[in-house]
């Protein structure tokens, strides 16, 4: 979805900020403070010994030794271990070799590898590696071999700051950018650590100023769908995200109100239209205990763009775009497809940029298409036909036929049965019916701020298996 088109969007929902007092946070619960001599035993290491960034061939582009307990050259074995695993079909993102464990992720053509000798907290190491990628993207736009080399001094500085002795430290790239910058050192005065680095509010700096105070909220729902070959819906799930762009001065307190079923029921509004969220995940800034207590979403936001929360729920609504396929394979000669696409949402909504991606055999040739609407394109690199429909109103049904020749010699490798994928976006609409009821913004200087809300539903992992 393009965020650029934002301000031109006609159906912006504009609200005035309410500036009532924030409720006081409930008093801390009292806990037993008896001094007892408990038997306990500690023992947990979260430590990565070293972090490496490698090119696609396994050559080290840059690395940092955090603990000095490991022979840094052990990385030389990494690539051959990965390749062995791949060959044996035992690929895992964790490889044990002697007493060293390699933990890695792949991004673009780079490997980010952490090594450890300990029983480390592995979820933490993976989260950290992914965070590292994110930081570098925010610093350098894209990361690849070239951008690593072009910025190696800065990357060393970052590696020094984001992890110490194997313990992740400050990883908020907006805060990091305040004191680790490419041109910061041209200044005569050396930078100082921003307050935020050690504050309880570690994600926002003080003294932010905007002439116009505004907040943009994007409610984006992605539909994950899995349909069996005989047309049964196996899974249908909505993963929603509320993304924000915050341009507010000072240290504003925000409170977001949703039509959350649990909240409505506990406050006696059980009859109003509400949404039952199965699981909710919040950005670091949201006060989790507060949410646990009374379902209030209260927070001091980071500056700029971030994801405030995500939620997940199962749906029992009809799949928004339904695809039926009839595939006739005539071995050694041709294969024919008959694809029917149906939009199963209200007529007043429209799905945009719909793409139905239909897998075809790798050795198919001479594509021929016939369709009532949209256009078709054979994409040999994806071994697929892409049927694009720019605008697909609700309650419609379209048809497409495709015909391919097959070679007379049968391919040796069997290809499996990749599913049909569908991409789409439906603006001004949420499948779950979730609504932003209010966003209260309170800052001590008392300015008025404008929240803008926009809704969109799009495909997530949307797969329909074929016969």
């Amino acid at each position, binding site marked *: 979805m393009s965020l650029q088109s934002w301000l031109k969007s006609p159906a912006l929902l504009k609200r005035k900020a309410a500036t009532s007092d924030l409720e006081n946070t409930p008093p801390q619960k009292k806990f037993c403070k008896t001094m007892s001599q408990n038997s306990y035993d500690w023992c947990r290491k979260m430590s990565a010994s070293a972090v490496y960034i490698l090119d696609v061939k396994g050559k080290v582009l840059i690395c940092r030794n955090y603990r000095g307990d490991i022979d840094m050259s052990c990385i030389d074995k990494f690539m051959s271990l990965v390749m062995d695993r791949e060959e044996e079909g035992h690929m895992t*993102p964790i490889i044990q070799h002697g007493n060293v464990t390699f933990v890695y992720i792949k991004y673009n053509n780079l490997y980010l590898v952490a090594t450890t000798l300990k029983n480390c907290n592995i979820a933490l190491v993976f989260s950290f590696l992914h965070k590292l990628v994110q930081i570098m993207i925010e610093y350098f736009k894209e990361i690849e071999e070239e951008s690593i080399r072009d910025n190696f001094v800065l990357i060393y500085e970052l590696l020094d700051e984001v992890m110490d002795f194997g313990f992740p430290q400050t990883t908020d790239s907006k805060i990091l950018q305040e004191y680790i910058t490419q041109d910061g050192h041209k200044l005569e005065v050396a930078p100082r650590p921003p307050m935020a680095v050690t504050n309880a509010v570690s994600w926002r700096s003080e003294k932010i100023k905007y002439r116009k105070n505004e907040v943009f909220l994007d409610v984006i729902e992605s539909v994950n769908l899995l349909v069996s070959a005989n047309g049964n819906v196996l899974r249908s799930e909505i993963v929603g995200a509320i993304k924000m762009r915050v341009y507010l001065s000072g240290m504003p307190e925000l409170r977001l109100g949703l039509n959350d079923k649990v909240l409505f029921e506990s406050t006696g509004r059980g009859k109003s239209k509400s949404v039952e969220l199965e699981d909710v995940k919040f950005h670091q800034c949201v006060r989790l205990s507060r949410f646990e207590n009374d379902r209030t979403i209260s927070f001091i936001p980071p500056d700029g763009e971030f994801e405030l929360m995500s939620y997940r729920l199962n749906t029992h609504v009809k799949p928004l775009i339904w695809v039926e396929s009839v595939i006739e394979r005539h071995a050694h000669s041709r294969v024919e497809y008959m694809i029917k696409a149906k939009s199963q949402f209200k007529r007043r909504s429209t799905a945009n940029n719909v793409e139905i991606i239909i897998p075809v055999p790798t050795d198919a040739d001479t594509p021929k298409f016939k369709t009532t609407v949209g256009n078709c394109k054979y994409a040999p690199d994806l071994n697929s036909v892409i049927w694009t429909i720019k605008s697909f109103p609700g309650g419609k049904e379209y048809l497409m036929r495709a015909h391919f020749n097959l070679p007379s010699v049968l391919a040796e490798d069997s290809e499996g049965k990749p599913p049909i994928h569908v991409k789409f976006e439906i603006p001004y609409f949420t499948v779950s019916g979730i609504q932003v009821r209010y966003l209260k913004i309170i800052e001590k200087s008392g300015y008025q701020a404008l929240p803008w809300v926009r809704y969109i539903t799009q495909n997530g992992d949307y797969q329909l298996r074929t016969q």
Partner: protein
Amino acid sequence: MTDSKYFTTTKKGEIFELKSELQSEKREKKKEAVKKVIASMTVGKDVSALFPDVVNCIQTDNLELKKLVYLYLMNYAKSQPDMAILAVNTFVKDCEDSNPLIRALAVRTMGCIRVDKIIDYLCQPLRNCLKDEDPYVRKTAAVCVAKLYDINAQLVEDQGFLDLLRDMLSDSNPMVVANAVAAISEILESSPTAQQVLEMNASTINKLLTALNECTEWGQVFILDAISNYTPKDDKEAQSICERVTPRLAHANAAVVLSAVKVIMKFMEMLDATSEYVLTLVKKLAPPLVTLLSAEAEIQYVALRNINLIVQKRSDILKNEMKVFFVKYNDPIYVKLEKLDIMIRLTSQANIAQVLAELKEYATEVDVDFVRKSVRAIGRCAIKVEPAAEKCVSTLLDLIQTKVNYVVQEAIVVIKDIFRKYPNKYESIIATLCENLDTLDEPEARASMIWIIGEYAERIDNADELLESFLEGFQDENSQVQLQLLTAIVKLFLKRPTDTQELVQQVLSLATQDSDNPDLRDRGYIYWRLLSTDPAAAKEVVLAEKPLISEETDLIEPTLLDELICHISSLASVYHKPPNSFVEGRQGGLRRVLPPKSSSYRKHTRR
């Protein structure tokens, strides 16, 4: 302008050239030279010869240059311990700089210079930094204590740094608390003697729980992991900790969520399993675990390995979530295999039809490992859910009809297990199985087929011919197949003694006289003697009724499972092995056990 230009010097005498540049009077030139040195270091060239020249640049106001020199020092100090002393003065001085960024940088780097000689000089600066007015310096100094402990534990204890570290748990700044916790956990793991100083009690735990709400996501993980190693004094305390940890399940960071799950799984053991509180808590655990399956593939993998443990410990947690484990076409293979495993664990009569339909679909995929495991899974379903056994068997027969070689072999292996679970029920399919005899080339499949023939010899008219056909290449067979063939022919003989005497003698002599395998020889002799001394006894032994195979043969043994639950989110939980099996020496740490049910709970149940 990019940094890549620093990598492009390849002339001879490069080191010499760099040396003169490093000695330049011009600040800019000096800085450029240091960058070139670091660039060389990055591509793996040995630039240790420049040590004195680089260290000479350390006295600078330029932060960028200082950082680069420090980086160089960390890399080469160990190879030049005598020269490293040259840097000591600067560290001491930088630790007193007016800029907290520089103080912290100095104390951070200091701890990474693992040279014994200079450590003594660093104690005073470290002591100052531990009490610095700036929390950024204090949090860095806290970690430095752990670094120093790793190099010289005695010194740290003698200098009283452990006490200072413990006091930091009460620091007003949550980041300082979090790093102090991390450092303490680290130290306790390598040294039991530190326990006296660093003991945790209810009041420190309470402080940690307060800091939990305010520190960074990583700090939350340090704190949660530390709390998970504490043993509450009773069920009340355990419950109150659980209550304060539960909100973390809504954190966006998967590591925070899993560490919270660990604390809750562990402390829940102390609570009355039937209490209202525990029932709600169990309900609260499912959604966050399911959400982890929308994370990055690697995190999904860690989550799945942990879920595998969790459902073995508390099977009720995810019993209604079968569908989320259905495999997607584009899942990485390691995610697919783990999902499959959990599907089997969650299979019950309520969802077997769906599961079976899925497994059948998977069995026609292309990835051989995945297909094999799917076929095997169908067999496990048959054994686990009795009413579905027939459906499973017919699904397996359908798969055998595909004639895909490895599918057929895998199917025969699991059908053997099904026969062992439901004897005398499905022998009508034996004829179909026998049709595929010639295509079996894997030892396990051959052995399984031979077992089936021996077991049902009386109903297979040409059992003797079939077994004889295997006997031809006896010497070349895998020992598993040889053993099975020996037993099967003896069974056949006991059931049809009249026309199989020759066959049995043949196999006995092959096993006892022509084999080097002691297992095979011994088994051959036992059969031989049994048959020659007391055929009736032989019948009782060889054709004895076998115990039915158990429903779940692959469950983790309960004490190991309990230990692994204490290691949720760690490598051990992914390997499904205790840490001491893959971490060397003491580092494996003490064995973890789940806390016992609390005494007050025991009283409660007695009532």
